[in-house]
């Protein structure tokens, strides 16, 4: 019999209880996901069982690829202008800063986004959700961060969509983000969520991050100052890249 939402809820709750107990017992609050997270069924065969190997000889990983104006176009950041017509949905602006762990801006680096349309459908052939495609929306964008580490996108608010992890599984609305730091070891692919989504508690991907405070770091804030009069609603979301201490102590890059 396929898993029900109740089965998934119980597994999520059991793992959360164990994680809270560990923290109460003196373990540090976890900052990242557990790759081994059975409520997300696809993770079961796709995570290493052996511990990661800590390596200190890592000159290559402490540097990283460089992107420049040749790698983006000015229009790439405005996902509402990639087709002749206007996409359907709620127009939003999403902006924030990319920082390293010591709070310094990550300058001139590439940020890529992709997302479903307002109906919750991706412009991807394998997305078979019977919601309408929007001929005026593809849902991919990119930009370089500025000197303060700021990125900026104009898009439409993505819809929630169903998936087949279990019966009646729905993803909370999200925008996928891919971010580069100055070191390859700072690479991040994640998802930005919207405040107060009622689907958070049911979603094993969102809940694969075991601590509440860490989950909050994936949720954008509605920012009225970022909203444009009679044009778009604004969301602010800062991104902090993890990375080896040698990276964030290094000056000047």
């Amino acid at each position: 019999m396929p898993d029900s939402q109740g089965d998934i809820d119980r597994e999520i709750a059991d793992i959360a209880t164990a994680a809270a107990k560990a923290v109460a017992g003196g373990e540090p609050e976890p900052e990242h996901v557990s790759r081994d997270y059975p409520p997300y069924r696809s993770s079961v065969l796709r995570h290493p069982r052996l511990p990661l190997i800590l390596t200190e000889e890592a000159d290559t990983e402490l540097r990283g690829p460089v992107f420049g104006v040749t790698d983006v176009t000015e229009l790439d950041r405005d996902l509402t202008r990639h087709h002749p017509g206007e996409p359907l949905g709620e127009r939003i602006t999403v902006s924030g800063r990319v920082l390293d762990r010591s709070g310094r801006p990550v300058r001139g680096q590439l940020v890529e986004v992709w997302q479903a349309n307002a109906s919750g459908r991706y412009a991807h052939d394998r997305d078979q959700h019977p919601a309408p495609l929007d001929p005026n929306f593809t849902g991919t964008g990119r930009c370089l961060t500025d000197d303060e580490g700021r990125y900026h996108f104009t898009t439409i608010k993505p819809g929630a969509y169903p998936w087949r992890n279990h019966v009646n599984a729905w993803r909370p609305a999200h925008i996928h983000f891919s971010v580069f730091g100055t070191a390859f070891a700072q690479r991040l692919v994640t998802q930005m969520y919207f405040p107060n989504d009622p689907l958070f508690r049911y979603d094993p991907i969102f809940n694969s991050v075991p601590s509440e405070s860490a989950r909050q770091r994936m949720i954008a804030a509605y920012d009225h100052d970022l909203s444009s009069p009679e044009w778009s609603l604004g969301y602010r979301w800062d991104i902090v890249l993890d990375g080896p201490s040698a990276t964030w102590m290094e000056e000047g890059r």
Partner: protein
Amino acid sequence: MKPTPSQTVGPFYGYALPYPGGGELAPAGHPDAVVVHGFVYDGAGEPVPDALLEFWQADPGGGLDGEPGSMRKDQVNRSFAGRDLVRFTGFARVATDADGQWAVRTFRPGATGPGRVPYISVCVFARGLLHHLYTRIYFEDSASDPLLASLEPDRRATLVATAGPGGTHRLDIHLQGERETVFLEFR
């Protein structure tokens, strides 16, 4: 500051992240070009058709400065223009195909310092993988590399490509299982 947690790349990155020529770091037909290739497998030994791999490496002289232009865009119509055949960018990105296979055409990286053993750094993303994984591709086993030297022979072998005909080098990535790849963390 506390880091933003990772989330899986999911199943639908395919129209957003891979790009034409993403795996072509070296021009076709260049006498020094090598093809590095392999499969990605899951814990049941099944090929993974929805993984995304990124590669970052030194240039043939060992330089790690990188150059822009890995994803050059046509500024007229926003299509991908391909690399410029002059600058070596050091970065490649390829998705596995329906068979779970990937390939990159590149130059062998040079040593980044005296006594350093060259390698290509690899970052693995996949549907089902909640947080990316780092590994490396070495072209030969070497006791003078501290990472290789620290590993048992069977684990070490997961990082060393096997040379094949015509300048090809094969390395399979096993996300889990008996032949699980050595994955790395940096601190």
